[in-house]
């Protein structure tokens, strides 16, 4: 890429300083500012969800028992409060944090930069998506303050149709948030199709964008199903239309089909962007061309397609027929293969690299290890005979946290450290960044690994109380959450510090090859003075001894 160093000399006014005042942010249509607003919002919702998780785990520190003297000990909250806490934790983490996290924050910021465009295709729709997100968030918070819901994030009927509380409001919040996600997805699909700079062929598209592209397709196609499902549920609750409630002549299991028809693809809405980030981290911080570009790009698309056909693996013990179970189990294994291929490609990319053990790389290595555990333990759950035993136990809780936290959230923080200098033009304290990454890795395993053991021993999930033989596992698990909390406190400190007096960085501090690094850090308002012409792939790093990758 020819333009790498040319812009380094004279710092021009960046997008951050181009306009002043709070209004210039609130009505901005600059994708970078919208990305930053999303970033601030999802960091806030992550903090909220994290505090809720700490409270959930605190309750589980000890079983609630009645002593011989008749005293009740061990309970911090009542069962009703506990159930609201874990439900809210799940809802916040899924709908307010993880689904918008990578696409809306980093996707927004870097997508146009990476393809050499001035903005996304529909800048106003982009701003609208942000405000729709804010409205949905406010609705969810309102429902929480108005009593909260205790249905679990899955809203299974007939419980959700009959329990009292602001369920309709919460469901409508998720409905509204869905639109935000559809808007973002649409915008990205069109932008990637139509606005690539000259020379930016599909084969030169950074893999992060292939992943965002696949994600967007799922968002646009699957989210309406969630919308319809939630609307039907709201209709049943508000108007007594019998759809899911057997007392009204409905079918409770139908809800589960609808719900997972959206929510399994949604699992890939959550993980694919994280996978995209991985392809950037392992290449740039090892100065190494990606291994298996095609396989990684195509596996994203394969995952997007097959993910629509596996929803029934959440329902092996719901009473669905043995043969339906058989088909869903088989397809589940098929969708596992593309994910496995990606992991192996990233590991192979490290081979022969020049690996810098900085914060982005430490997060990337955490991903490789944690996501591998998450993926491998998924085999137990896709297998019919073993899933019967493990379904709805803590084994599943551990599994999906290894995938969603160990995968997506870890990638999210990798991305935060990778693109932070680009977004704000300043470096963070690298020593503390490494400490925080390592502390998180330890804390995460301490929290979640014991959950595999207690789960396969039979500890069911969504349990306010438990039998005493599980106490030691719960104690270890709860202590791990404090380490995780500590690692994020450290991170908050050094990042705020960096914003205020971090060392200024050049356009391309990591020596990366993709286009977002070709413009200054932080970028100017219009990204590039003139639309760049692309002549190389995004991972064409030089080789020691002179020759480049083919």
């Amino acid at each position, binding site marked *: 890429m020819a333009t790498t160093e040319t812009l380094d000399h004279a710092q021009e006014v960046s997008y951050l300083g181009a306009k002043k005042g709070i209004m210039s942010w609130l009505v901005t249509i600059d994708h970078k500012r919208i990305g930053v607003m999303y970033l601030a919002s999802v960091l806030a919702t992550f903090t909220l969800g994290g505090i809720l998780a700490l409270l959930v785990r605190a309750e589980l520190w000890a079983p609630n028992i009645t002593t011989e003297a008749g005293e009740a000990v061990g309970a911090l909250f009542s069962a009703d409060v506990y159930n609201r806490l874990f439900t809210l934790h799940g809802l916040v983490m899924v709908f307010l944090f993880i689904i918008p996290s990578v696409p809306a924050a980093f996707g927004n910021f870097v997508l146009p930069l990476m393809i050499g465009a001035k903005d996304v295709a529909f800048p106003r729709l982009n701003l609208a998506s942000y405000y729709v997100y804010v409205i949905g968030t406010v609705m969810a918070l309102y429902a929480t303050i108005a009593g909260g819901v*205790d249905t679990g994030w899955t809203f299974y009927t007939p419980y959700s149709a009959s329990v009292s509380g602001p369920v309709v409001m919460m469901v409508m919040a998720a409905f509204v948030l869905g639109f935000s996600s559809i808007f973002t997805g649409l915008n990205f699909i069109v932008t990637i199709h139509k606005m690539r700079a000259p020379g930016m062929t599909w084969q030169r598209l950074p893999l992060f964008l292939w992943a965002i592209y696949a994600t967007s397709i799922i968002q646009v196609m699957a989210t309406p199903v969630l919308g319809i499902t939630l609307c039907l549920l709201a209709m049943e609750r508000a108007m007594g239309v019998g759809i899911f409630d057997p007392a009204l002549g409905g079918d409770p299991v139908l809800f589960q089909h609808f719900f997972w028809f959206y929510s399994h693809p949604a699992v890939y809405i959550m993980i694919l962007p994280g996978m995209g980030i991985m392809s950037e981290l392992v290449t740039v911080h090892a100065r190494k061309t990606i291994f298996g570009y095609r396989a990684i790009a195509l596996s994203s698309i394969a995952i997007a397609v097959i993910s629509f056909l596996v929803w029934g693996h959440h329902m092996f*013990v719901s009473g669905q027929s043995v043969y339906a179970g058989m088909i869903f189990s088989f397809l589940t294994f098929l969708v596992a293969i593309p994910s496995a291929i990606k992991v192996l490609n990233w590991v192979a990319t490290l081979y*022969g690299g020049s690996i810098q053990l900085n914060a982005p790389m430490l997060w990337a290595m955490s991903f490789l290890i944690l996501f591998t555990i998450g993926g491998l333990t998924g085999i137990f759950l896709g297998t019919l005979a*073993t899933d019967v035993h493990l379904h709805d136990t803590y084994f599943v809780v551990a599994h999906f946290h290894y995938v969603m936290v160990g995968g997506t959230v870890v990638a999210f923080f990798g991305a935060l450290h990778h693109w932070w200098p680009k977004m704000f033009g300043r470096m963070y304290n690298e020593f503390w960044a490494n400490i925080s990454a390592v502390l998180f890795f330890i804390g995460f395993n301490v929290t979640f690994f014991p959950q595999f053991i207690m789960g396969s021993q039979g500890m069911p999930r969504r*349990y306010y109380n438990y039998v005493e033989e599980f106490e030691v596992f719960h104690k270890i698990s709860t202590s791990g959450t404090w380490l995780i909390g500590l690692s994020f406190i450290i991170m908050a400190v050094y990042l705020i510090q960096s914003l205020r007096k971090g060392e200024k960085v050049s356009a391309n501090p990591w020596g990366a090859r993709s286009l977002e690094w070709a413009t200054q850090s932080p970028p100017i308002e219009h990204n590039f003075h003139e639309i760049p012409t692309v002549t190389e792939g995004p991972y064409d790093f030089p080789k020691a001894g002179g020759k480049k990758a083919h």
Partner: protein
Amino acid sequence: MASETAQGSFWMPPEASTFAGDVDALFDFIYWLNVFFFVAITGAVVYFAIKYRRKSDDQLATSQVGHNTLIEAAWTFIPLLIVIAIFVWGFRVFLNQSVAPDGAYEVKVTAKAYLWQYTYPNGAVTGELFVPEDTPVKLVMSSEDLLHSFFVPDFRVKSDVVPGRYTTVWFEAPDPGEHVVFCTEYCGAGHSGMMSKVIVLPKDEFQERLEKDFIDGDIPPAEMGAKLYTSAGCSACHSINGTRLVGPSWKGLFGTERKFADGSTAKVDENYLRESILQPMNKVVEGYPPSMPSYQGQLKDVQIDALIAYIKTLK
């Protein structure tokens, strides 16, 4: 070995049903496979991170290999074959877990927030499940309110319990003992307290206690069903001796194969009978008029259960 499985292992609770060992064998296989791949992948990551660590700022990569068809084909197809093998193995064990042997001892399970109730063929009702050892036991379960799920970790048995339909599980416990039952489908404030026990008794002790201890005065379901047959008006259209009235006779009905007006077929089981009583128009028996009234909202669940129990006795 026996004592080890009786106490459970690091990962698994004790094996107390005939197929628990099969499930665990598969679990162990996947487990060791996981260990292998985990060590290989983590090992490679750590090894590369040390070996190719950047030692000076301007150090470049020593390789820029972008793909290798052989390696890529290998790591696509080998895992594919492995998971297909696991799938087949898992399905076979699952079939055995799902399909109760003929003639299994049948107990009706009723779940409601927040308790479990077990009804035996002789009408006894208990809050803990008593079963004879060395005997296949089939549970026919339904819920009176929400979703619940019946989970016995020691048996490796689990199934959701759904209002308005029947689900089944079966198991055979080779040894006497006690095993905890959890509810594993979230059902509100009492979910984590919705526990019960399976108590496996030697055969003769089971018989004795079933006859003496558990009868609580309620009439057995089949007897209640016989009364409903006339009191609810079924007898107007259904005979029990094989003669054809408006509708088909119930004699020998249970377990037969039915052909419907639209050409489809189904086996007569609990769900089919329930559906026939509640939504008779869904499946109209071939050769009969669609004139069976729906009893939706008129018969309670226990009454439907009783009718079904009665129909089953009409051999």
